[in-house]
């Protein structure tokens, strides 16, 4: 099985916040019809959701759970459509390893900290966290700073890292990185 590749998305935080608020409200009210509508579920999945003890109970199940998995996939699809715009995907499966361990990057503590934040899945909403997956985000200023700092190190960096730097520097807005969306 090939390793997933890191992608960069332009993140619309307001829209993500709005969607997250709707989801939270529907779950708190256990409004399964409303949830099915928000997620664009087909008849069969909507029926499965209706048969659960509660909608939040389903959302707490593991990513690979047979009942929950298609619901999670729908949720991620809706999030992508509403709040994420694909910017770039790496061609190298080695990129994450380079970012986490390449000594030229690790020797610069501010660069290393920003990279770690960009790859810290705990900073993502629960519905964008996936087991074994990598993800994170940087606000616009942090993204610009990181692109500039890494750009200055360019000659000493591997090709796959420089491709990421170019993508980070060439986009606008907040950046979300993920390998399994």
């Amino acid at each position, binding site marked *: 099985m090939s390793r997933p590749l890191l992608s960069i998305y332009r993140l619309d935080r307001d829209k993500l916040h709005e969607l997250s608020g709707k989801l*939270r409200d529907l779950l*708190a009210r256990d409004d399964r019809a409303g949830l099915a509508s928000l997620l664009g579920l087909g008849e069969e999945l909507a029926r499965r959701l209706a048969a659960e003890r*509660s909608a939040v*109970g389903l959302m*707490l199940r593991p990513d690979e759970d047979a*009942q929950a998995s298609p619901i999670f996939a729908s949720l991620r699809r809706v999030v992508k459509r509403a709040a994420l715009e694909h910017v770039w995907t790496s061609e190298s499966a080695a990129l994450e390893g380079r970012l986490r361990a390449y000594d030229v990057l690790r020797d610069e503590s501010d660069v290393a900290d920003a990279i770690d934040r960009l790859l810290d899945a705990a900073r993502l909403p629960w519905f964008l966290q996936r087991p074994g997956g990598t993800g994170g985000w940087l606000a616009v200023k942090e993204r610009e700073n990181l692109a500039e700092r890494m750009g200055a190190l360019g000659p000493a960096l591997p090709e796959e890292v420089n491709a990421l730097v170019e993508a980070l520097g060439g986009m606008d807005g907040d950046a979300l990185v993920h390998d399994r969306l």
Partner: protein
Amino acid sequence: MLGLQNDAPTSDSGPAPRAERSDGRKNKTGRPPLPDVAGAASATIEDVLTARAAGSFDEARTILAAIDKGQGLRTVLRAAAALEAEDEDEVAKLLPLVRKDSPAWQLRLQVAAALDDGKGRDDLARRAEKLGAPAWSLAWLRALSSNDEEQRAGLVDLLFEDAALARTVAARDLGFADIKVDNDAIRRYAAFAHGRDVIRRFGAAHVVALLGRVDTSAG
């Protein structure tokens, strides 16, 4: 003196075990000394709870005195047991230590979680919130409500505050069969839930009374 009275041997019960004798020499306050319990220093909170469950309240206090390290849950229980036994000297000695217990919100929420739904629980939750209880801890308490709607709303709050803990609470506390305990959250869960469970078994009402003293004297 609720505890000491319960430990008094009756005339037809034969000689009381050493640990439960309450007719020893009185100290300067007129209160009989707590019994000497062999091995108390190596005992655990479980031994305290077992002694209390058997009605041996003096023995439980002796064990607590031996295992108390001057902070944390053991000190809290020792003070609550002293209050229960109306041992004001010991209460006065321990109250400053309980007041220093940190984080202050945690004990209040653990006690609240050990209580059934109601005003006492709500008051403690409000007090904990004022003392800086984080959103996840308040969501957890809400998720433990016996009211279905309140429980669901709390679980949703917890999911959005701390999904790993939400999964663990749902699996461990709420009986959701298809949800896996999240290893990332086990330590946080255990730290909170242990205190709650011990307080529940000890008798939450006594700890509530103790916190009433703490909060009153703190102003």
